[in-house]
């Protein structure tokens, strides 16, 4: 019962901050609202007793969204939001598509029979078991992710490098 309340509260916070991302006109506020939305998602992970993922999500998103904030200040026309420009296109269509997508998924949630609900888990063993899973069964996935990260880093630097004349 308490878990449902916490998951619900953090979820409503995540959704509210997510809506603020697209309705505010200040760009830095938008980036930091996304940060707090992701932190609320991380808090939902913590409420659902997956401690490692929650802490990791909050830590990663704090750093990522701050970097996104400076990129917004660099590339957007009105970072302070004091001029009140409206920078959207096809607004009606995208609203309809967004609402339709959400309703579709919610309908699926209620129509599918989810099966038996499992009991509780203990956080103490979780970090150890997650480590064992990563190192034994999912080692190939982890190594592929590592190579993908390296490739993405090299590709990004190559794309963003200034051409020498």
């Amino acid at each position: 019962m308490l878990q449902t309340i916490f998951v619900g509260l953090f979820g409503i916070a995540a959704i509210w901050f997510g809506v603020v991302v697209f309705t505010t006109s200040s760009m830095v506020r938008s980036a930091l609202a996304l940060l707090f939305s992701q932190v609320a998602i991380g808090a939902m992970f913590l409420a659902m007793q997956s401690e490692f993922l929650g802490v990791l999500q909050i830590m990663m998103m704090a750093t990522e969204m701050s970097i996104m904030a400076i990129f917004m200040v660099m590339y957007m026309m009105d970072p302070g939001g004091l001029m009140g420009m409206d920078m959207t296109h096809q607004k009606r269509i995208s609203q309809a598509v967004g609402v339709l997508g959400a309703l579709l998924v919610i309908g699926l949630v209620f129509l599918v029979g989810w099966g038996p609900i499992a009991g509780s888990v203990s956080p103490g063993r979780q970090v150890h078991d997650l480590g064992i899973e990563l190192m034994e069964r999912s080692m190939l996935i982890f190594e592929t992710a590592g190579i993908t990260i390296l490739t993405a880093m090299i590709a990004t630097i190559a794309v963003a490098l200034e051409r020498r004349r």
Partner: protein
Amino acid sequence: MATLIVALIIGAILFGVGLYGSLSQTNLVMIMMGVELMLGGAAVNLVAFWRFLHPEAYSGQVFVLIVMTVMALEMAVGFGVGTARFRYKGSVEMEEARDLKG
């Protein structure tokens, strides 16, 4: 059961908000923020499935780790492309990026 339904509904609404943002914004950075919200909603669903349906199978958490990795990577590559575009054109508005050449 109630917690699972609540978590899945929240994941669905996050996905919807992210979808609205990705489709309605003209700036590359804002589109990427919409994609981040969609991936966040998917991650919420995955953790709910892991916790309430199969807590003994840690491959659910590995899936979420990979989704988080993808979130970081698409942001990095997106900003690299945005930097190159900004250098060429002076703005990252997607409305101006209609032509294939240049």
